[in-house]
């Protein structure tokens, strides 16, 4: 005779997670892990002198690029600051191509001539990688203008730090985008610091998002450590841009776990070890993997498997970059001007 043993109650999914999208959710985690391991490897390579110049790591902010870029179409336009390795990977540029560029090698996206701060892939609408704080914000406005000019449904997305918001370029670019109703999305990655300057020592107001009212622009404050929340906010912004043809300013609250660049200590004159450790408790990768496990969409083993997978991918990228050839000497004088004229 059969005895009925009550099966242990499966945890009830908290609202928000759609089991049918489990693959998507797991891929977000994979992307975040890829970025994390890629950046750790890049830091290692930098210490070994294989990567030179300035190298700004994205560790701690992974959920922002992954959650937001997941809401875009292939033909949308993206511009970033110099802290763009994560965005490049999340957009789908191969780890080999990105790592090779960091190494300054010929198969790098910019033939090794751009470097860490200047990643590009025109075929993916990934249009840099810009080194002058704030300067790429008007560029994004121009790309949104082009979308409107051509009557396409493209959107132009621009990522920048909270310190860029005090710069005149931000003000001029957002005013024009709002005035002309352009399909632009301005994503301010508020990681609390511009180099060694805390937000409140550079901006007269704490809530960056309120700057949008100067342009009558829709805006939101977003938790950048939760990829799901980031993605949902981005979907709303994309909808506004594509359908209502209005720009949005998203203030994304996040945190930089590493120093400003490889030459800057993790904590120093401007922030304490305690603060960093405290912030690390909301590691976007832990937040998301725990959520997926809690929802029963992934288990510890599954996380480990993903981790293994991306570690292999990063290792491969590293080896590839190591062995890749240097650019030919005559590359020095190439790409300064267009080689042949456009057909007219």
């Amino acid at each position, binding site marked *: 005779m059969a005895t009925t043993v009550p099966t242990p109650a499966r945890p009830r999914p908290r609202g928000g997670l759609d089991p049918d999208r489990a693959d998507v959710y797991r891929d977000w985690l994979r992307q975040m892990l890829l970025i994390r391991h890629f950046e750790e490897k890049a830091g290692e390579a930098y210490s070994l002198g294989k990567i030179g110049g300035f190298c700004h790591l994205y560790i701690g902010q992974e959920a922002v690029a992954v959650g937001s870029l997941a809401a875009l179409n292939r033909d949308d*336009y993206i*511009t970033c600051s110099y802290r763009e390795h994560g965005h490049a990977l999340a957009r789908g540029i191969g780890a080999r191509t990105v790592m090779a560029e960091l190494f300054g090698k010929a198969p*790098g*996206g*910019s*033939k*090794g*001539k*751009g470097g860490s701060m*200047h990643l*590009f*892939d*025109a075929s993916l609408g990934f*249009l*840099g*990688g*810009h*080194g*002058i704080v704030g*300067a*790429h*914000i*008007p*560029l*994004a*406005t*121009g*790309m949104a*203008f*082009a979308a*409107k*000019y051509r009557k396409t449904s493209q959107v*132009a997305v621009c990522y920048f730090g909270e310190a860029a918001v005090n710069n*005149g*370029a931000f003000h*001029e*670019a957002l*005013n*024009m985008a709002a*005035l002309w109703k352009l399909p632009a999305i301005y994503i301010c990655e508020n990681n609390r610091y511009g180099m060694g300057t805390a937000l409140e020592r550079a901006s007269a107001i704490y809530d960056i998002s309120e700057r949008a009212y100067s342009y009558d622009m829709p805006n939101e404050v977003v938790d950048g450590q939760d990829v799901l929340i980031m993605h949902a906010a981005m979907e709303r912004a994309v909808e506004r841009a594509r359908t209502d043809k209005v720009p949005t300013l998203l203030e994304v609250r996040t945190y930089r776990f590493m120093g400003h660049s490889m030459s800057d200590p993790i904590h120093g004159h401007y922030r304490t070890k305690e603060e960093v450790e405290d912030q690390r408790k909301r590691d976007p990768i832990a937040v998301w993997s725990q959520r997926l496990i809690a929802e029963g969409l992934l288990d510890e083993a599954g996380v480990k498997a993903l981790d293994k997978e991306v570690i292999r991918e990063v290792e491969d990228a590293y080896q590839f970059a190591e062995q890749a050839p240097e650019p030919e000497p005559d590359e020095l004088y*190439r*790409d*300064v*001007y*267009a080689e042949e*004229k*456009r057909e*007219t």
Partner: protein
Amino acid sequence: MPTLTYRDALNQALREEMQRDPDVFLMGEEVGVYQGAYKVSRGLLDEFGPMRVVDTPITELGFAGVGVGAAMVGLRPVIEFMTWNFALLAMDQLVNSAAKMRYMSGGQVGVPAVFRGPGGAALQLGAQHSQAFESYYAHIPGLIVVAPATPADAKGLLKSAIRDDNPVVFIEGEMLYNTKGEVPEGEHMIPLGQAEIKRSGSDVTVICHSKTVTLALKAAEQLAGEGVEAEVVDLRTIRPMDTDTVLESVVRTHRCVVAEEGWPFAGVGAQVVDTIQREVFDELDAPVIRVTGADVPMPYNKFLERAAKVDPGKIVAAVNQVLYREDEA
């Protein structure tokens, strides 16, 4: 051939290029409703509408960047600076974005944009509104710099600039807008990078561009009366410079004067001198002499301003100097 003003020749070039290519648009302060601060864009808003003739807020940095961004994704913006004095605010976008994008992206992303507007001193506009910045842009690899002197060149060069796949800095002569000249109709193109001998002569070469071409031609007339035949070489494109034409002329005349509206220190003329003395040193019978604007901020007072500017007399004096005719000067 119809006679047009320099202003209308530019207007014609813009109209023709906008008719030819729907990707070409004009953006800047007062280019639309106001018909252009100097009326170069007169009538274009009516013909092409507000999406292709775009009035901007007073944000040189911002709308120059908008132009660069639009060009990065394939449009062909013509960005008007009301004057190049104000473009100093946009310097970063021209030098760090427009000029470097192709190189930084390993050739993936070009910036086929034209940045245009009047340069040089007009009349009594004072220190902040009377400057010539050719040398600033010509200093930058990645940029092309054009400065036409005649209505025909203005049209032909602007059309070429708009079709060029590189960022082009197009500096118009604020004092030339009303000058008249014959301008070929329709497909009149002048290749970028070619100087032109505007008057030939065998005794001395006068190298100039934009407004100083007019002054050099006046000086040449006067010198002809004194039996001196001056060859007037109009650079037309400052960068890349047509050094062949420049050097060939100097090799013929063995004497050279270089004139420009701007300041002397590291001006365009300094580069011309450097090139000449390096390439044809042994051909020179005298040092190359430069005629430039006075090395001071431009004064408002009309007599002081006149004294600060290049004029035919100063060019004649320089020619006399390289011909060792000081006595007659």
